[in-house]
């Protein structure tokens, strides 16, 4: 279990999870930074899933796909995708190489590595578990808690 190292607080509320699902960016950042961390963490998971489903894609393609599925998450600030891609690549979850785009120009294509696939599995499980806990929490009635 690599992702949770150093994140010992049980994550009940998303907004307090400093480590997010994937620790991204400056983890020593202040409160301002936390929100983007969460966003980036979610984004990373989306990137992995996108590449898992669609195979090799360039940055624009990934952005489009995420936009299609998540609605307005990437309606603005598509550029924030690139630092996430870089981070994932540096961690070895994805790999990239030059290829030809639809415009027939040079574009950087990203694909999931074996390690990334493993990571995606773990993250997915974690995510579902968390979602389940939160779900139960929200469904709980007042008498259940007393």
């Amino acid at each position, binding site marked *: 279990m*690599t992702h949770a190292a150093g994140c010992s607080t049980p994550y009940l509320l998303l907004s307090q999870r400093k480590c997010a699902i994937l620790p991204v*960016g*400056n983890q020593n950042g202040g409160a301002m930074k936390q929100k983007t961390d969460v966003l980036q963490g979610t984004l990373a998971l989306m990137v992995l899933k996108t590449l898992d489903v669609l195979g090799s894609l*360039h*940055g*624009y393609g990934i*952005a489009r796909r995420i936009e299609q599925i998540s609605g307005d998450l990437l*309606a*603005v*600030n*598509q*550029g*924030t995708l*690139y*630092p996430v891609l*870089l*981070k994932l690549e*540096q*961690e*070895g979850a994805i790999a990239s190489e030059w290829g030809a*785009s*639809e*415009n027939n*120009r*040079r*574009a*950087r294509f990203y694909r999931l590595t074996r390690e990334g696939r493993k990571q995606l599995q773990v993250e997915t499980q974690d995510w579902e578990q968390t979602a389940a806990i939160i779900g139960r929490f929200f469904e709980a009635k007042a008498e259940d808690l007393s």
Partner: protein
Amino acid sequence: MRSLRRFLTRLINSATRRAQDERLREEIAEHIALQTTENLRVGLSPVEAHRQAMLKFGGVEAMKQDYRAERGLLWIENLLQDVRFAIRSLRRTSGLTAFVVITLALGIGMTSGTFSMVDALIFRPYPVRHPSGVVTLVSTTHDSSFDAFSYREYLDIRDKSKSYDGVIANADMEAVGFSAEPGATPRVRGGMMVSGNYFHVLGVEPRLGRGFREDEDRVHGRDPVVVLGPDFWKHEFASDPSVLGRTIRLNGTDFTVIGIAPETFPGMQIFGHPDFYMPLAMARVFSTNRQKNFFEDRDDRELNVRARLKPGTTLQQAQNELTVLAKNFESEYPKVNRNRGAAVHTQFEMRTRADDVNWKFGVIFVILALAVLLVACTNIAGLLLSRARTRTREIAVRLALGAGRFRLIRLLLTESLILASLGGLVGIAIGYGVVEWFHSFQNVIFMTDLPVAIPFRMDTRILLASLALSALSALLCGLAPALQSTRVDLVNGLKSADVDVPGRKRLWARNVLVVAQVSTSLMLLTASFLMVRGFQHSLLDGTGFAKDHLLMTSFDPRLVQYNAAQTQQFYKLLAERVREAPAVQSEALTQNVPLGEDGFDGIAFVPDGFQMPRDRENFNSTMDTVDEGYFETMGIPILRGRGFLASDTADAPRVAVVNEQFAKHYWPGADAVGKHIRLDSSGGTPVEIVGVAQPIKYQATIEKPMDFLYMPLAQHPIARMTLMLRSSGDPLQLVPSVKDVVRTLSPNLPMLDTRTYEDFYLNKAVEGPRIAMKLVGSMGVVGLLLAIAGLYGLVAYNVSRRTHEIGIRMALGAAQSDVLRLVMGKGLVLVGMGTVIGLAMGFALEQLMNSMLFNAGGVDIVAYIVVVPSLFLVTMLAAYLPARRASQIAPTQALRYE
């Protein structure tokens, strides 16, 4: 694992920044292009399509920054940037950089060089396993806190104490006649007798063969075995391993080589590195003192005793145990152990004992070197301060563009750190030079055939210390300027190239620098002047005897196995025959030459008619054994009574000559001639004082007057003696005739240490102090030069900054002299303050030096009369020159000056 990988990738990325930037740029372009195409397809106009694409992408620069932060290691990149920038800006002012580096290097070099000396003399641990557990045991009396133990005492301590994992003993290193083959003329080498457990307890594993077994040290005279020292093995036997088991001859007795000590163990002494080690049980072959029985006499104290503390045993416990043992000795053997205690000391305590001057010189050298370094640092701080000020505008621009203050301070500190590293490196080179310089005096200072070496060296400890010192100096020099120059008023800073922040803080720092410089260099100068004068004084005082036209050469008839009677006969005939040789005016035999290498023997006695203090058994004095020609040959006047005569034979009544100090000490106001002393105790052999000699310098030119006693050779036989011949011409011309005489008496007996006494004296008594004077003097000069340069720089800089103001003053009618007064006044006050503080520091240092080295009380007024005004003059000149230049500027020119 993942984070390590990420770190490595980022590290690599830091190095390949440019290619990566290119890749990102391309990706962004392609992304926007694809989005634009998409937008066009929806039906937007080309311009609008591109605009929408850009909007959707978001802030490119902000993203780039995130990307970069993600990609590389920001702090490494920043650091590299800082270093690159610092190197560039240092190169731009290469003159200043060179000056700073050299200044710093001088300070650091001197400190590390002298520290190598102090390290060897005080701090370097014994070259053995777990050196911190090794303690030294000493016998203590009223007269000596560091006395040795006798063989019997050693055995008792070894067998009865429980605090130690082994107690070892060794005699002092002594001259031993060595020959590799029987029949060859013996040569003198340094041998040391050690206890059988010596190597074992110290944890020294022989390089070849084995150390002594304990049983080899049990039966007296049974096991003639020897362990060779590493250097001796290398030089004498060319590192031949087959030497093991071979027989060599020591003082005429055959010894079997059983082992070679390892390279890492040159010996336990600082200077002396024994050529070979013999078991104590073989003492009869090496014993020097024929009056005592080494194995039996409890007052024949020749052994240095060390022990390894048991783990968990404290020094205090060991001390308590030893005190009880010493008490027992006292009650069991009141005759020889009355009022005799014992103490346990650590290595550090032994190295910093009060009666040793070497380490004190070392410490004073280091203090002075640190003072030089301090002057250098203040100098550099001043320079950097001035430099930072001329960069005010640059810094203001940086601040205005959003550079953080911390980042700027870091940048400036990087600069001084680079300066300090350069200075440190050059300084270490200088340190090596200083150590080499020390080494070059090895043969000058130690005029002896015994294996002694100057063990100063630059090892890792010194190097680390030097580097730490450099880093510290970087902080010292750089922090204040960095803090100050980043505290700029932006508006003013941008308007003018050089602006003064209102307020006194800035000037205050500068003034402190000037005062510190003047006072430290004054202290340095005073110290070096005092030391030079101290030595000169001792040399000018004279030694009290004639040093010219003397030939000296030593004999040790034990080398050819003479017994006591043969030895006496040899010296008697030698004296008679050489006296008749041509060009020999007079002849003398002495156990030790004055100011020689070996310490004089001590003698215990009770003076007749002297009221002994209740707690004392006897008194001690240093002594020499001489023949009847000694006083005449050495030109030592006999003030009252007579010297020794040929009639003072072994059968005649015992006689002695004392020096005037001795006579005054024990018979104040009376004539010592005719009085008696008794040897050892009030019941001992009576000896009549037949003469009083004028005191001379006995052991060192800087010694204070001491009691001294002479005994005639005929009544106090000694094996190793030195022949002194006074010639009418060149003393060395006597050598062949002495050789002839010796050959007729004893063909195989070597002549040792043959040279003129003057030669010996110059090297031994003059050269050592001269080296110290050179060292201290050069520190004083370097300190002064640095202080002058620094002072000049600071004042000149101040003046140049006030050029504008001076122009206005002069335009308004100020005279040249007014301007001069204005500028000089400030300098005067600072120099004055520095002088006062420096005087106080110099005075404190003088007290320290007097108490440590010269034994002279009081204040050397002359030193201050010379040093203070000259420093004052020089510093005033440093202030005057720029002031004069300022007062000569034409007002029009000054007003136009920015």
